């Protein structure tokens, strides 16, 4: 029995959305469009406004400015029970005095669906989240992972056009979390509903999302696919927040369009793609991911972009090695390398920064 929504998932638009709490601006002037059926993640550190934004879409907070359009209809003034979307809460919020069946069927009951059809759809929803034979149990008798699935089923059984998920996997152990991430992605495809997901875990965001909106201090800093966010961070914060980055300080030597040359503390020059608008001579930071740094025993053909350094530490991480290099006592580089690489602490190496993967930002 298909749990696909009628038609397609909702298109959700946030227009100049703003939320103030007693003088503190939690969400500033945010504009965002979520495409029908996509899996979009709001990613950011604690307090960045992602949960507030989600709650405003769900109707649990009312914006102090702007509007929220679900399929072209402004719902900002509507209470949650009049919005065609459902939410999965962080602590699941299952009704403790009701059985699983009644919990899952609650939304259907409110919509006036008859008992026979309710039971059928509840069964389908529980099957969809791979939970069997728990209808008669109480939430307190279930494990965390099971409760999570019940919360999912309770939301999905109503075939909402959009599903809002507020860090639902936080309480699960690592393995279960990883399994659930894939399941959620599948559910997104199966149902066709638009999923808006909130998390502070950037790995999770990269795994599951069609697009990610990186937020900080109430603003969306960058909206893009996981690859775009990872490879082409738009500013220093995003570069630092997503994955690991080496941040090499330097001075801007020359610039030409969106390319630039940076003089780094070892004396060498590094070419990078330029973001921000620093002036020549200003302090800047070059960001390069550990896995993009190329290690060689000898200096590269052109001395530019190549940094002599010593290996301080080799950390074995199972599928790869993480090397800590020191070019100067203050300049540290983290580099990944295959585990069978013949390197040892104390060895001298040359680290090359390929200009294609290096980004230059203005220093704070």
């Amino acid at each position, binding site marked *: 029995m298909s749990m696909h929504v009628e038609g397609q998932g909702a298109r959700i638009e946030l227009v100049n959305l703003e939320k103030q709490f007693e003088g503190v601006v939690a969400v500033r002037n945010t504009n965002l469009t979520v495409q029908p059926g996509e899996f979009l993640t709001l990613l950011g550190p604690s307090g960045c406004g992602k949960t507030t934004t989600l709650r405003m879409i*769900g109707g649990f907070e009312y914006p102090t400015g702007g509007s929220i359009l679900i399929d072209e209809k402004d719902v900002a003034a509507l209470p949650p029970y009049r919005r065609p979307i459902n*939410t999965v*809460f962080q602590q699941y919020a299952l009704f403790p005095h009701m059985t699983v069946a009644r919990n899952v069927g*609650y939304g259907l009951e*409110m919509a006036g669906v008859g008992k026979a059809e309710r039971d059928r759809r509840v069964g389908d929803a529980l099957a969809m989240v791979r939970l069997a034979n728990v209808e008669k149990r109480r939430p307190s008798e279930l494990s965390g992972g099971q409760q999570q699935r019940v919360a999912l089923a*309770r939301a999905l059984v109503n075939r909402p056009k959009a599903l809002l998920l507020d860090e639902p996997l936080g309480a699960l152990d690592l393995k279960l979390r990883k399994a659930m991430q894939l399941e959620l992605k599948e559910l997104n495809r199966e149902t066709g509903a638009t999923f808006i997901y909130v998390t502070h875990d950037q790995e999770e965001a990269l795994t599951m999302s069609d697009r990610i909106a990186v937020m900080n201090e109430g603003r969306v800093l960058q909206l893009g696919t996981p690859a775009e966010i990872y490879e082409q961070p738009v500013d220093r914060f995003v570069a630092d927040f997503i994955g690991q980055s080496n941040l090499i300080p330097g001075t801007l030597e020359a610039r030409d369009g969106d390319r630039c040359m940076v003089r780094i503390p070892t004396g060498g020059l590094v070419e990078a793609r330029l973001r921000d608008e620093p002036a020549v001579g200003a302090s800047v930071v070059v960001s390069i991911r550990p896995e993009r740094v190329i290690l060689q025993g000898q200096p590269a053909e052109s001395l530019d972009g190549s940094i002599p350094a010593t290996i301080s530490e080799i950390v074995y991480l199972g599928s790869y090695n993480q090397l800590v290099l020191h070019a100067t006592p203050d300049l540290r580089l983290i580099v990944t390398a295959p585990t069978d690489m013949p390197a040892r602490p104390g060895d001298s190496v040359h680290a090359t920064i390929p200009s294609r993967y290096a980004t230059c930002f203005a220093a704070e």
Partner: protein
Amino acid sequence: MSAIPAARSRRFSLGSVSLTVAAITVFIFLYIPLAIIVLYSFSGEVVNVWPIGSYTTRWYGEMWNDSQIREGILLSFRIGLIAASIAIVLGTLTAIAVDRFDFPGKSLLRFCVVLPITLPGIVTGVAMLSFFSIMGMQLSNRTIIIGHVTFCITLILNNVVARLSQIPRSLDEASADLGATPWRTFWRVTFPPILPAILSGGILAFTLSFDEIVVTLFLKGRDATLPLVIWARLRRGFSPEINAAATMIIAVSFVAVLLANRVSKWAGSS
């Protein structure tokens, strides 16, 4: 190394024994008067002497045949049920307001609600008496009920607020998210968990009302509740069926408190 722990435990056990003895003595002291009344309600003597010569259940029979006492029992039950019911309504409404809303004067309100039961009964009785007198209201069972409700509200209020505060706000949000209006959310999500708290508070309110005497003395009309009947006879001198009637009150209280306890324990399991 093993000598020291032994010395310590020896010291503990000597103190322990005297502590236990003291504690149990106090416990017995706590129950002697109640035990005496119950015991002597079965005494065959007409006065309370020791030792008891013979035992009988005759006083219970006399008590029940005594129409004044019988009507007192019925009236006490009626007043107790009505007062508890009204207190339940008022207490629950207030509890919801206190738990779900922030408003100026909230702690003042809670303080005022607790006053009638913490200030001496005589204050409540006398204040209401002067009020009814100024208002020109005649004293009757109605005034008794009003008096009882007033000091019973806090019982339900505290019970329900305590239970309400355990319900996370996310449950309300989940209910709204799933399509329930606030009215439906209240009855389906908020009310079921607080029902045991309401009931156990109400039962305790009934108990307090059933055996209340001080406020009742000031607010009574023509009819007499069971405590009033007993009190009147006490003032005149002793008659043995008083023990029986008092035992009955004790029994009702005991059953009610036990019931309230069970009801709120049953809540804890959900």
